[in-house]
Structures are given as structure tokens and as C-alpha cells.
């Protein structure tokens, strides 16, 4: 198990960053990464070491996150049509923009959020994103469209980042 522990220590920071984008909460992110690593440990002997481990644990993590939400009888983060209250101050400072993005991400469903993180943070293509989430490419396309649409609606101050030109 030593090589697994080595893997955990080496990859935890990057996994935590992705998990934080997925959950928006420090503790939830830690729980999610822990759960994904435990499942990976159970498969450790069988996973292809030639670059497959990181992909495996990320796949588990993303699916767990989407799955957890689907299984909950309620959602702590309610998706609403009403735009959120936006932070005051200069909308063009870095801190305010980060806050706006965090707030906007919280308005997405977990699947939309996962698609967004995979596509625009992990830089994965549509096919690979679909593979990670275990859904169709069509679903990835529609979820991406809906996620960006909601971000534009709820956070006009991010419009310059979300225009088709900026995302092309």
C-alpha cells in the first residue's frame, strides 16, 4: 500500500482543487476526495499504473459528486431562477470576480458544474467529459449550454469571460 499512500500524498492537492470547484466547500471537497481515494484503493492492484490511476480517481470523484446529489432527497444548494445578490464594490477586481464566479457556480446543478469544471478547468474535450461522467456527448453539450446560459444570467459581470468569443 506504500505506493498508494505515495499517490495519495502526491495527488491530493490537485484533486482537492477540482473537488472544491465541484462542491464549493472545503469539508465537502475533502470528503469527496477521500471517498474517491478509498474506492481507488479497493481497485489499486488492477488499475493500470501507466497513467491510468489519476484518470480513474478523477472519474470516480466526478461520478460520486453527481451521484451523491442525485441520491439526496434535498439539495442544500437550491437552484432558483432568481439571480443571486451580487457582491458590491468594483466588479473588475480579481477578488470580486472570484466571488461572483463562486456564487454563480453554486447556482448550477452538480452535473452542470461537473461539466463546466471538466470542460473549462480540466480542459477535457466533449467526448472525454462524457466518458468521465458516464453520459452521452449530447448530454455534455446540452449541460454545457445550460451551465453557461445560467452563468450569464446570474452573473452578468462575468459576461466578458463567457462570451462565445472568449470561450472559442
Amino acid at each position, binding site marked *: 500500500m506504500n505506493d498508494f499512500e505515495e499517490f495519495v500524498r502526491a495527488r491530493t492537492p490537485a484533486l482537492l482543487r477540482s473537488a472544491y*470547484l465541484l462542491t464549493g466547500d472545503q469539508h465537502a471537497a475533502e470528503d469527496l476526495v477521500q471517498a474517491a481515494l478509498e474506492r481507488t484503493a479497493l481497485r489499486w492492484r488492477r488499475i493500470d499504473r501507466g497513467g491510468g490511476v489519476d484518470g480513474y480517481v478523477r472519474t*470516480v470523484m466526478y461520478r460520486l459528486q453527481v451521484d451523491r446529489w442525485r441520491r439526496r432527497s434535498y439539495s442544500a444548494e437550491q437552484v432558483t431562477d432568481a439571480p443571486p445578490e451580487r457582491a458590491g464594490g468594483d466588479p473588475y477586481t480579481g477578488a470580486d470576480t472570484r466571488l461572483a464566479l463562486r456564487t454563480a457556480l453554486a447556482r448550477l446543478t452538480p452535473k452542470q458544474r461537473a461539466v463546466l469544471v471538466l470542460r473549462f478547468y480540466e480542459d477535457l474535450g466533449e467526448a472525454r467529459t462524457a466518458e468521465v461522467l458516464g453520459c452521452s456527448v449530447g448530454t455534455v453539450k446540452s449541460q454545457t449550454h445550460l451551465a453557461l446560459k445560467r452563468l450569464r444570467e446570474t452573473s452578468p459581470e462575468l459576461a466578458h469571460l463567457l462570451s462565445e468569443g472568449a470561450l472559442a
Partner: protein
Amino acid sequence: MNDLRSLLADVAGEVAPADLAPRVTAGLRRRARRRKVAVAALSVAVLAVGAVGTSALTRRKPAGLTPATSGGGYDGMWIDIEDAGRTWRIQAQRVGEPRSDRGLVTAGMLTEFDLSPDGTAIAFTTPAGIAVARFDEKAELQEYPIRRAIGPTEARPAFSPDGRSVLYRRISRKTQGISYDGFAVVDLATGAVTDVAYPHGDGDVAWSPDGATVAVPSLGDQGIDLVTLAGARVGRIGGPGWFPLVHGWSPDGRHQLVAIVDDLGGGREAHGAAVVTLTGDVVLRLPLEEWVWRDAGHVAALVGDDDVEERGLDGSTRPLMTFDFGLTGVHRPTLRPAS
């Protein structure tokens, strides 16, 4: 894209560093401990199958080793193994799944049910007693007609091998738990009930494949009584460490497969199973918790978290399949016959 990615990276960078290695290790130890709680896990397994409802109980037989997800918004997963005209199902259960508002969960206590041998009906315990229902063509459980509710003091139904009768326990509800007073057999065609006085044992009774004998487990005695439908005990098998509430007849009626809990001392236990003859001779020991009869000479067993092997009574071992449950979001898989 770069701007959005940079901003996402900035947000991601707000997360505080954490050393998760000790937590992962502790979590794996908890998982190992959970595997030892065979009783709780098995009862959850029954509940889970009930919650899956139509999917787990249909006569669906996909060709080959086909993983599939069930419909109806429930993402239970199973794998069917087709072999010699019979289908064996590996049911991947979930824990903490919200109960479905469809199907049997709304009908009663799904900790106690039995499928008819031909897979077209189910007998189950409700607060009002035993109910027997048939599936419609689509196996939609909410549409079945409840044919008979017998009374509030019956439990643990079991179909006869020919599917024409249901045997159930007579119970007395007391301040502290319940006691089993005997059992009864109801003829499903006529409704006639035959009482059998046998005030012993507890748990699920199981009809022998030839219909002549009933296996009545007794947790206190760590054994199984073999009783005729006239209430006469014709045999008893058991021994130290037996956990007879989890048991099953071999298809030919010559053996019982029984859960075993070995006390290793110091509070440690090892869970497994034993195949025994009806005179109590142990034919095969399995250091495994999940198993199901495959045919009269073989048991399918879950090895580790994702390997399914066939173990023969002659000591042979044959791998059946491996499946990656790591990606399914399930707690642990269980084995059940699906046809």
C-alpha cells in the same frame, strides 16, 4: 477560454491543503469492519432489492454478461450471468438511497418477501399480514392486485417449490420482541390454511426443493431443524459458530449453505459460509460472505469487492467475471439468483 480557466483555477486555489492519507486509511478500515457485519448488510441487501423493485424482480434475461442500469430514475446496477438457461444476478446495492415511491416499498415490509419459483408473483409481509401479488406483463409492481391479506400475526412467507402454496410463520407479538408459534401453509387457489404446530426457531423458513421438508433456523440453538409439513422434526443440523438465519437449500435438496461466524478471540470474527449435508457433515468451507447456489454442485461467490468465482463442492474454483464497482457509486455488491 483561458480567462475562464484562469478564474476557475483562482477559485480552486482557495481550497486549504489537507493531508487525507490518514483519513483514507481510517476509511478503508471502517469499510473492512463493515464487511464483517454480515447480518446488517444482508438485511440492507434485501431492502435494496425491494427498492430496486421492478428491475431486480423482473424476468429480464439479457444475453451474456451484460451490465445495465435499471430504469425509473433509480440507478441500481446489476450484472446477469447466463448459464445453462438460468440467470444469476449480481446486485449492486446502495446504502442510504432515498426510498422509491414506486413499487413495493409503499406496500409493506420488504425485509420479508419471497419470489415465486416462476418469477411471476411475490409473497411479502405487510402490517396487515401476508400478501401475495402477481406482476403484470411489464412487472410493474404498483399495478399488481393484492390477492390475499391473511392477518397481523403472520410473517416470513416462502413459496412452495411448485408455486401453488405459501408457507408463513405464526408469530406472537410480545412486549419484548416476538415469538414464533409455528407455521401455516395457505393454498393459493382455494385459500385453505393448514396450521402446523412447531413453536421453535426464528428467521426465514425454507421449503426443500422436493416440497417435503421445511428448514427452520434457530439462532439460539445455532442450527437448522428439518421439519415435515406435519410438524415432525426429522433432522437437525448445526454447530458452534453457525449463523443459520442466513441459509439456503441446494437445488437438489441434498445440502444446505449456511453462514458461519468464527470467533477468532479478542473480539475478532471471521465471516464465511459452509456447505453441509443434511446430517451435518461439512462438505465445503468458504471464507466468503456473499454467495448463492449456482447449481447442485457449485456456488457462485463474491471474492473481494468485484470478482465473482464459482466454487465447486469438489473444491474446484473457476473465475466467472470481474466487474469494476468502483465507478458505480455503490456501497457493495451482493449475489442473488435472478431467475
